[in-house]
């Protein structure tokens, strides 16, 4: 029981320290602002550890953070292999191909009102298909390896990106398009120099939504057939063997990978759309 009280004590002490920090001059410095959430995260982990140890929670229900960390340390090569298979080969190529296809389709739709009426409803229809129905079919078509996972990701990310690019291309102001006309600009000049830059805030919204979908798609698709590695395969088999510490370790890797992926897109967005009111500081 003493572990529990120690953890609760640490939690209260960290809380008090954070209140102090937030009110002090440190809150105005960069380090101070980073310290507060960091301390909060550590306090959550310590409380979690204390609760699990103090109340003797079964590892199948909830393993302690130290156990998960030890598992990550011990199984690093396996986790890396899973990560390479699911994220590097499944999610990212699928994301890139899906985004590229959405871009080409958006331009085609923009050039032809006929396609606008035809392709958007089809895209909408495909996006409405449940992934648990789609994934087994694509595994049958493209095999057990990463190609079928990338295909699932393509289907999942295509529509949100497409809708955002199409909306973004409509977002330039009439006056700005009139200006282009008075200068005798061609369709492609107007597209590159006005409409695409104006569409960037929309496009990045689409990419950010799609980045989380890509991760979910790549992991869940492995439930329907995969080689004997990959994050989705690891989660489904370790659950069957009651190896919950390994499941949690894989989830930790997935959460980290997802955050880094999302963070990268946000960084690029800040660099590309620095001019947009939402990015100006």
């Amino acid at each position, binding site marked *: 029981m003493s572990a529990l009280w120690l953890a609760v004590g640490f939690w209260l002490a960290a809380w008090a320290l954070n209140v102090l920090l937030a009110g002090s001059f440190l809150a105005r410095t960069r380090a101070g602002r980073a310290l507060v959430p960091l301390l909060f995260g550590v306090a959550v982990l310590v409380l979690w550890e204390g609760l699990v140890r103090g109340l003797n929670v079964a590892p199948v229900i909830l393993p302690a953070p130290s156990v998960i960390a030890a598992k990550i340390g011990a199984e690093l090569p396996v986790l890396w292999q899973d990560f390479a298979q699911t994220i590097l080969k499944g999610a990212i190529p699928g994301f890139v191909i899906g985004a590229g296809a959405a871009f080409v389709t958006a331009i085609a739709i923009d050039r032809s009102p006929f396609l606008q009426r035809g392709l958007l409803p089809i895209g909408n229809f495909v996006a409405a298909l449940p992934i648990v129905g789609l994934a087994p079919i694509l595994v049958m078509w493209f095999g057990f390896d990463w190609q079928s996972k990338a295909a699932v990701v393509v289907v999942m990310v295509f529509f949100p990106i497409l809708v955002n690019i199409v909306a973004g291309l409509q977002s330039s102001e009439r006056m700005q398009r009139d200006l282009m006309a008075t200068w005798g600009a061609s369709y492609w000049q107007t597209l590159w120099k006005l409409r695409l830059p104006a569409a960037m805030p929309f496009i990045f919204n689409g990419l950010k939504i799609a980045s989380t979908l890509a991760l979910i798609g790549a992991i869940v698709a492995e439930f329907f057939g995969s080689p004997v590695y990959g994050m989705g395969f690891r989660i489904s088999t370790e659950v069957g063997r009651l190896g919950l510490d390994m499941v949690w370790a894989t989830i930790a890797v997935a959460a980290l990978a997802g955050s880094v992926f999302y963070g990268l897109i946000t960084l690029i967005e800040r660099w590309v*759309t620095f001019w947009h009111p939402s990015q100006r500081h």
Partner: protein
Amino acid sequence: MNATTPVIEAKGLNLVFQTADGPVQALKDVNLTINQGDFVSFIGPSGCGKTTFLRAIAALEHPTSGTLTVNGMSPDEARRRRAYGYVFQAAGLYPWRTISGNIKLPLEIMGFSKAEQEERTARVLELVELKGFGKKFPWQLSGGMQQRASIARALAFDADILLMDEPFGALDEIVRDRLNEEVLKLWARTGKTIGFVTHSIPEAVYLSTKIVVMSPRPGRIADVIDSPLPKERPLDIRDSREFIEIAHRVREGLRAGHHED
């Protein structure tokens, strides 16, 4: 540079918009000749077709009947030959480009060389007194400075005709006076033909060699006044007797247009 060479000629011009509430006659039987080097103001209440006429010259609207020529060509042809710079009510600068980048945009589209882009940008920035602001972004400048940058952009490719649609409508009186003076200086220096849409009687009288008074429903020309004011115009010319007489005639023209409603 013959002062009587016609640049813009409209004969029996009609323009009808098809709207959800039925057809709207925006321009009815408009006849007007604008000569090389004229400064022409279009004044009238909203709905009188002054903006529509300017947009028709720029081939942004297409007349339903009648003829309209710019430099002896159709407006569409003239647009493709980059015959005019257009300044809109708002500056319409692209926020992702610096002031210099915005001024270079039409030059890039028209295929000027890099060196010439730099040279022209520097020249027009000086012309509108924005030297040193080229590296700023539009949202870092005041409204008046943004509008000056948009004028610089319209001047950069040296079109003979400058079309301005209420360019200073959103600015306060003091900034407006100063920019009016600058536009006059610019006109004197460059000898361009200028078409200028405005709501303001003093602005129209102060700037123009020719004032076109228009009235609404249907949009038509009520009066064309050739100004006897000299080319050199200090701000206090607005207290002179000639100025007040022309302003009076413009006001009469506007009132006559309203009585017919």
